[in-house]
């Protein structure tokens, strides 16, 4: 199935859901920002800065406009559609970040099975638990999860099986998850062409990222099927509800890096990584999250392999001060190496993020965030003649208004 056909199918199911399903829960969010930044043009806009807004974009900005629909279909099926606009136009001003059908049979004999088909995030992030894959802690995601938002989406099927210890008197559940997918064979290109960034923009399924690819200068399109081979991920988790969650996952898109698309001549990017994470909650308002991800991405034009190993990790500490107020601090480190003669695409960086969230009732959320990224990259030194690390600062005030029925 071609991406256009898939897009049409997704749009048709959205229309069907909007008109035919009375039990739907829907949500409309508007997130407006006041931004102060000293950064150069973002890599997302064809520049080099690893954050979303540049100095020239200081002032009022659209953070996000989101429309989501979540509805049961009969007893054990559920449809979820999540569309967003970010104030930039690649293919279309608004796009679906997730769209899937879920099968939720009743748990039996301690086993709970959940199956999904469509387009959705692989279960890697421990940070993006808010509606629409947002973060309840900060505005900008960690470098690790910003990359997932930019390039990764499962367009395929996933099965999760949980062994429910908590339903038998034990304090924990154990889960296993596996996914099979296609159409994600250019994922990895954005790391080699601009490196990790810290932002909250999510690439819509089958849309482009803002990053430009290599000498061609074309926008990267992460969602392409080139070699006809499916990729997979498989993971495990151990969950002490309300206290501790430990996850591990192996991801490999199994793309053939020597296969170019016959029309566009874009190569398939073989991207594989391991990830692990833990989230601990004290029960008295403290939360600690740590995530780690390491792998490599590769293309082999003419059989000549070009390889970029990468890794990213972060630790986040959050404290709920009162029922409505949360303070969070996060430290990120990220690296892209290059096994190529010119070291093209190398990046080393770290970042500090501090955020204060005020939950002003059912509809209003106010967030203040300060982000400081220090990054040393090939692109900086080579193309801007600025050797050594560069530090960018960005402050954001976000006011979010949410309208709609209760989320599912």
């Amino acid at each position, binding site marked *: 199935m071609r991406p256009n056909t898939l897009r049409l199918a997704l749009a048709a199911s959205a229309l069907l859901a909007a008109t035919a399903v009375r039990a739907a829960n829907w949500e409309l969010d508007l997130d407006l920002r006041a931004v102060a930044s000293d950064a150069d043009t973002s890599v997302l806009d064809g520049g080099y800065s690893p954050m979303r807004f540049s100095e020239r974009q200081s002032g009022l900005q659209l953070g996000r406009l989101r429309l989501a629909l979540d509805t049961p279909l009969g*007893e054990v099926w559920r449809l979820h559609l999540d569309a967003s606009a970010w104030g930039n136009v690649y293919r279309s001003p608004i796009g679906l970040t997730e769209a899937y059908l879920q099968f939720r049979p009743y*748990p039996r004999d301690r086993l709970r099975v959940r199956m999904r088909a469509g387009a959705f995030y692989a279960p890697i992030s421990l940070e993006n638990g*808010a509606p629409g894959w947002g973060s*309840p802690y900060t505005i900008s995601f960690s470098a690790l999860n910003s990359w997932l938002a930019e390039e990764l989406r499962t367009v395929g099927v996933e099965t*999760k099986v949980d062994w429910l210890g908590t*339903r038998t*008197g034990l304090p924990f559940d154990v889960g296993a998850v596996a996914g099979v997918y296609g159409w994600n064979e250019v994922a990895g290109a954005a790391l080699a062409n601009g490196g990790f960034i810290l932002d909250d923009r999510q690439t819509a399924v089958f849309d482009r990222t803002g990053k430009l690819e290599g000498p061609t200068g074309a926008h990267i399109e992460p969602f392409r099927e080139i070699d006809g081979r499916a990729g997979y991920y498989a993971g495990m988790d151990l969950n002490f*509800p309300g206290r501790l969650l430990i996850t591990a996952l192996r991801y490999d898109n199994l793309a053939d890096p020597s296969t170019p698309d016959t029309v566009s001549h874009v190569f398939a990017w073989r991207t594989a990584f391991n990830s692990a994470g833990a989230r601990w909650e004290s029960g008295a308002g403290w939360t600690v999250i740590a995530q780690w991800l390491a792998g490599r991405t590769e293309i082999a034009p003419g059989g000549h392999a070009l390889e970029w190993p990468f890794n990213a990790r972060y630790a986040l500490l959050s404290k709920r001060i009162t029922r409505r107020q949360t303070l969070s601090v996060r430290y990120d480190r990220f690296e892209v190496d290059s096994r190529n003669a010119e070291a093209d695409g190398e990046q080393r960086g770290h970042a500090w993020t501090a955020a204060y969230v005020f939950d002003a009732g059912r509809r209003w959320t106010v967030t203040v965030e300060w982000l400081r990224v220090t990054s040393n990259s090939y692109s900086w030194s080579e193309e801007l003649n600025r050797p050594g690390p560069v530090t960018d600062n960005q402050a954001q005030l976000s006011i979010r208004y949410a309208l709609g029925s*209760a989320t599912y």
Partner: protein
Amino acid sequence: MRLSARSSHGPLAASPAAIAAALFCVLLRVVPAGAASLVITAQLPDGRPLADAVVTVQPIGKKLPPPAPVHAVMDQMNRMFAPEVIVIPVGSTVAFPNSDSVSHQIYSFSPAKRFQLPLYRGKPYPPVLFDRAGVIILGCNIHDWMIGYVDVTDAPFYGTTNAQGTWSAELPAGRYEITVWHPRMREPNPGLVRDLSVDATDRATLTLELTKPLRPAPMEGQSPSSDSY
């Protein structure tokens, strides 16, 4: 639960007639000549009261008639079972209204009672009969963090502790095995167990203290990664 499960004679029934019936049974059975009163206090390790703990009292060496069944209610409010735990005699029924604006589905695969209530709002289903002793653990198939407990007991005296951590009963003199259990206590099943002799006209008091704090209550949004499935 909209009724009190803290009476010494088990949950007050949902209807006045049932309350009267329950009190009648109690008068017949539990207050013979030489009745004693028993006061149980449950505490957390830091000395604070342990509320909503299940107390069951079984006689040792003699048999008392089983307690009368009741009609109890376990509500669903703010995407949680309310209360989290109830204790009822064998043969009782429990109604599971949904006071939330969103739909819930209830399931149990506990051996003492397997059942499902398909997707609903309000109170479309008749109460569920619990005819075997044991702890039944309830879940919601929509909101995976929701968890509730129905303790079905054959003990002649039972109830849950109040906000001060106490529960009291009038019972005949004799030896009893007293069990205090909470679904989130870390002590192994069946919980804290003590033997106690109660003399006629005595007022026996017993304080039980947990050695470890309770596990946290699962709450909405605390496990976002699993909620997204």
